[in-house]
């Protein structure tokens, strides 16, 4: 119950900051739209190069990527590194009778949901104005598995970002690592191009990494581009990465908290 209250409290805070949230949403919106325009042009000039990814496939992919960017791209790391660690507000959290992990989880979730609501509006605009362009899976079992993949992707993204934020306990300036990871996420998470269109050897390498399981697979799952076996395989790999990141988080938290000084608080 206490976590529901935390969620509701931060939901209130997020709705109060809706104009700022909309500005944040624009970041998730701009790049997929530019890529969509790029492929629209490339598609009309060279349709044979895009293979199985026809225009509607690209449109569906990038429109869903707007939603994925809004919901799945957790931005908790800067808050943790700056407010909690650099300014020392972590001291307040340590005194609260709630788990820091779940507190931050329910702190971030309302912001993601609100940003996603803007994404849903854009999605509906596409569906209404360009009927038939966006094609998603319609089978119930596929939808249910895709929903699971979506939430597993969110959890994976959250685990990565909270671990990254807490890495500031060990370093004086975590920005270098943070930016490097952000670039890796954008490239290998499928934000530029569907990973399906990458060369085969690179694709096989990328599918071992956690990044595609945070963004790319939730998107292609909803597009219906995965078979039941592939959906189940995705879930297994996601769960494996979740366990791996949970262990990483525990190590960072247990070792890092001993180094926290919370000066002046």
């Amino acid at each position, binding site marked *: 119950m206490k976590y529901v209250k935390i969620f509701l409290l931060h939901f209130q805070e997020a709705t109060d900051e809706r104009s700022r949230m909309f500005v944040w949403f624009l970041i998730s919106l*701009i790049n997929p739209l530019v890529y969509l325009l790029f492929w629209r042009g490339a598609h009309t000039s060279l349709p044979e190069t895009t293979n199985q990814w026809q225009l509607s496939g690209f449109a569906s992919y990038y429109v869903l990527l707007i939603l994925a960017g809004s919901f799945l791209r957790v931005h908790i790391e800067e808050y943790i590194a700056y407010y909690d660690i650099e300014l020392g507000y972590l001291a307040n959290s340590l005194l609260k009778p709630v788990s820091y992990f779940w507190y931050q989880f329910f702190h971030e979730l309302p912001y993601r949901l609100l940003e996603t609501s803007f994404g849903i509006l854009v999605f509906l605009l596409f569906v209404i104005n360009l009927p038939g362009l966006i094609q998603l899976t319609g089978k119930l079992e596929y939808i249910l598995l895709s929903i699971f993949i979506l939430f597993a992707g969110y959890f994976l993204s959250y685990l990565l970002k909270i671990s990254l934020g807490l890495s500031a306990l060990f370093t004086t300036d975590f920005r270098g690592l943070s930016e490097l990871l952000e670039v890796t996420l954008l490239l290998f998470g499928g934000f530029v191009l569907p990973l399906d269109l990458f060369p085969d050897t690179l694709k096989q390498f990328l599918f071992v990494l956690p990044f595609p399981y945070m963004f790319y697979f939730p998107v292609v799952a909803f597009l219906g581009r995965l078979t039941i076996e592939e959906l189940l395989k995705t879930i297994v790999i996601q769960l494996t990465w979740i366990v791996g990141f949970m262990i990483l988080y525990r190590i960072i938290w247990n070792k890092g908290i001993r180094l926290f000084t919370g000066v002046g608080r």
Partner: protein
Amino acid sequence: MKAYLKIYKMLLKINFSSLVMYRSNFINSTLSSMAWAVFNFVGIIILTSRVSTVFGWKREELIVLTASFTILTGIFHMLFSKNFERIPKLANSGDLDRILLYPIDSQFSVSFWEIHYSHLIRIPVGIGILFYLFGLLKISITWQQIIMFMFFLVVGLIIQYCIWFLATTITVRLTRLSNIPEVLYSVTGIARYPRELFRQLTDYVFIFLLPLTLIIVTPVKVLFNQLTLSEIFLFFGVAISFLYISRKFWKYSLRYYTSASS
């Protein structure tokens, strides 16, 4: 003017001292800047991996756009972007009071105060790739073209400065929108794509985006000998009008600055 040059020289020195003082921070920021430059190049290479021409632009020509964008953003982020990130904070905390009391122009103070040398790294990277691509495309470039390219890049820089300044000035009045500079990083990324890409949009949206699409494409067209007289007029027209509008908008917005009980 002389006094402002003297102040700027001093600012260059002070900012260099802070670089020497916080070396690990500098290395970290250089890494971040480099990471984004790599993202731009790898992004366009991946994006064009399945196509040889898009909107009449060859793959290598698109990479030339990205290389020029890298040079321009290197200069821009070094000289301006951190200053623009500071404007919302100044307006929100009321520290803008102090700046308004300085016996120098307030636009100068808010735009030129911080210099981040860490972004310098992008310039040699962009130039190196540019020369490599021209060798690959077997295009010979004259000295006049290089000088013209640099001059047009400076004008492009002015347009980008004005766009950022106009957008950030909004935060003087609407202090809640302090994250506007963050979006501008994504918005200006549009400049590295051919203008034809945005012609697919409605006329209103295209006209709105037009200044952004001029920033990089126009200087690059100098290198390809494809620039028309009308494009030159448009480019300079946009730069001059944006300089005028951004200045006026800053003065106008300051009228609504209410401070923060400081």
